[in-house]
């Protein structure tokens, strides 16, 4: 595949275009990704191919010589995979050229995600690219494309606050605890409740390397969660004794009446000699009496606090999105400019080579009618004239290559015209035949 004919593409479906039921059907698990890439490469015959599949999107990224044919092949493949669900045309998008590159850069930065600025997607894309490299489906163009994408992500993270703040209540609960007691790695955290929120909170606490204790009314659930997240089960009915040894308590139960009362906390704090205690109540209705925060060195956060924090983070990230998109645009333009720079080097060389060969051929025609001295003079004259004639077009094509405002494809189009004008789009033999 030559530089000039390679077209990057992204074909796929995301939460923007398809309902969850469809996305679930075409989703590919991490374990199956390698075999799917291998199978797909057999269908569409390309040098570059990566498959990104998350719970919110499945996208096939690659380069092709024939966009229409590749699109048809991928649609057929996805329909085969989707089993009982028929993919409607509006469920899929097919982006090519600048649009495809721009989409890829937006995706890697989390700008196209459901939660703007999320970082997980970059890791998933890294994995997808790793699989492509493993399968030998990442040519130099593809490597440059992904390198640029990851570099753009780094720049966006460095120059904007797109990833700032927390966007889930469970993570916000852990964040609040950290704001009070600091590093959680040497802290003891009690998670009360082994439901969905409790499980999620345990996962985040695990990331923070906290020492986790789990208590639940149904002991089996607590045992299961503790085993899964590396925690210790503590009895649910001996809450007061347990609290004495804790630094943080996360309440996520469905209890209808408060489990933690002011009286209990006052007793606990007396036994703890007033050490810091953070209570994060993510239950509805509340599991902790609001009055507990009047006890010295006790800090209570409730669901409203966490929801406010999440809302603020989401709004702050939305505010940063424009700034991030601006960076993406700049990086897309820079990527195409780099590609054009790589492309014009051989064009200039070919132009000079063709002209020099033409000059040499013309001089050969008059060789018998010229003395040695005359030939030397003519050779010098021809070389000098050639340099002067080629100077302006050479400069012009170099300028086109470095023009970063040309991401819309105009510069690429002009370079194509330049090649046509000097006959550089034809094979060398044909060019020389026509001289």
């Amino acid at each position: 595949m030559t530089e000039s004919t390679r077209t990057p593409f992204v074909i796929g479906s995301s939460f923007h275009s398809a309902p969850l039921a469809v996305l679930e059907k075409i989703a590919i698990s991490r374990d199956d990704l390698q075999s799917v890439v291998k199978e797909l490469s057999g269908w569409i015959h390309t040098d570059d191919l990566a498959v990104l599949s998350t719970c919110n999107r499945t996208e096939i990224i690659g380069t092709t010589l024939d966009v229409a044919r590749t699109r048809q092949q991928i649609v057929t493949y996805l329909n085969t995979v989707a089993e009982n669900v028929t993919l409607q045309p509006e469920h899929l998008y097919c982006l090519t050229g600048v649009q495809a590159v721009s989409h890829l850069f937006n995706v890697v930065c989390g700008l196209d995600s459901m939660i703007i600025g999320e970082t997980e997607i970059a890791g998933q894309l890294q994995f997808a690219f790793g699989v492509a490299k493993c399968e030998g489906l990442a040519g130099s163009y593809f490597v440059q494309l992904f390198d640029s994408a990851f570099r753009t992500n780094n720049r966006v993270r460095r120059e904007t606050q797109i990833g700032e703040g927390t966007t889930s209540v469970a993570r916000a609960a852990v964040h609040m605890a950290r704001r009070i007691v600091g590093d959680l790695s040497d802290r003891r955290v009690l998670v009360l409740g082994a439901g969905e929120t409790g499980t999620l909170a345990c996962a985040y606490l695990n990331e923070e390397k906290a020492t986790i204790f789990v208590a639940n009314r149904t002991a089996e659930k607590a045992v299961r969660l503790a085993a899964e997240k590396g925690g210790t089960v503590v009895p649910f009915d001996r809450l007061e004794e347990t609290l004495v040894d804790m630094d943080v308590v996360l309440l996520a139960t469905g209890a209808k009446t408060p489990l933690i009362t002011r009286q209990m906390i006052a007793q606990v704090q007396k036994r703890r000699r007033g050490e810091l205690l953070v209570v994060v109540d993510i239950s509805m209705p509340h599991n902790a009496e609001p009055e507990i925060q009047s006890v010295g060195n006790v800090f209570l956060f409730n669901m409203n606090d966490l929801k406010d924090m999440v809302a603020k983070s989401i709004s702050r990230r939305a505010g940063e999105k424009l700034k991030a998109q601006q960076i993406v645009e700049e990086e897309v333009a820079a990527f195409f400019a780099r590609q054009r720079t790589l492309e014009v080097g051989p064009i200039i060389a070919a132009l000079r080579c063709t002209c020099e060969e033409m000059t040499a051929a013309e001089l050969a025609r008059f060789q018998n009618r010229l003395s040695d001295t005359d030939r030397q003079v003519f050779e010098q004259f021809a070389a000098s004239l050639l340099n002067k004639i080629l100077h302006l077009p050479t400069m012009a094509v170099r300028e086109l290559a470095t023009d970063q405002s040309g991401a819309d494809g105009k510069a690429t189009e002009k370079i194509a015209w330049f090649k046509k004008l000097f006959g550089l789009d034809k094979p060398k033999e044909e060019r020389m035949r026509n001289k």
Partner: protein
Amino acid sequence: MLIFSQILQTTLPVLYGAIALSYLFYFYTRIAALSRVATVALLVTAVLHLGHTVVLGIIAMRHPMATIFEFLSFVAMTMAFIFLFLETWYRNGYIGAFALPAVFVLQLCASLGIQPAVAVTPLLEEVRFALHATAFAAAYAAFLLGLLFGVMVILFERSVKRHHFGIVFEQLPSLSVLGKMTASTLLLGFVFMSIGLGLGAWNVMHAPTDLQMDAKVLLTILVWLVYGFAIFSRFVLRWSDESTAILSIAGFALLAFTTVATHVTFSSWHNFVG
């Protein structure tokens, strides 16, 4: 050397002012580069400040802490060094927005009044007196930082208890870290003050008897006791961060009163000028 000293005397408040502004901008904008630049600039400025203090001593041929202005300058410089250590240790530059404006104000006041040619009491030519004054200046610097951290603890606690999670809640270090910063600066100040008092007592034993009857000495011992209690309550009784913060603020209020009272109201041989 005199020109170097004069240039730095004018430049230091400007530099500290610019650094304080950088930390304030960093606090509001969270642009990490600002913090990095401010930290490097502060290190360079503090080293220049140290150079200025040494040169001042060489020019005046005495310990460079004889006047209140020189004392303030030394306190500002020590604060800058202690702050740099804490910033590096706890990896949080946001506290600079509170600490550096204080350093700037102290140095501004100091630069307005420093005069190398001022005549001082011969007491300061003795090494033990010089060390005594240096220990006290370092104690003042640590206690002033303790006061600022104490204020941060109170602000942080208030914002949490009132469920206002604004910039103070988000930018300051965690409450636990702020508590540790307050306690560690108080401990540092207490150690310096104890050394200062010890050296002072040693000086008194080798000095005329009238030195013992001084209002500043009595008030300073009272301050030392207050800070001693703050340390005891924190590290032995394990009182809360809020209590330590309140004691830190009370201790500094008494310290400030002692300093002002000694220089304005009571007569004291601790005024070394003339």
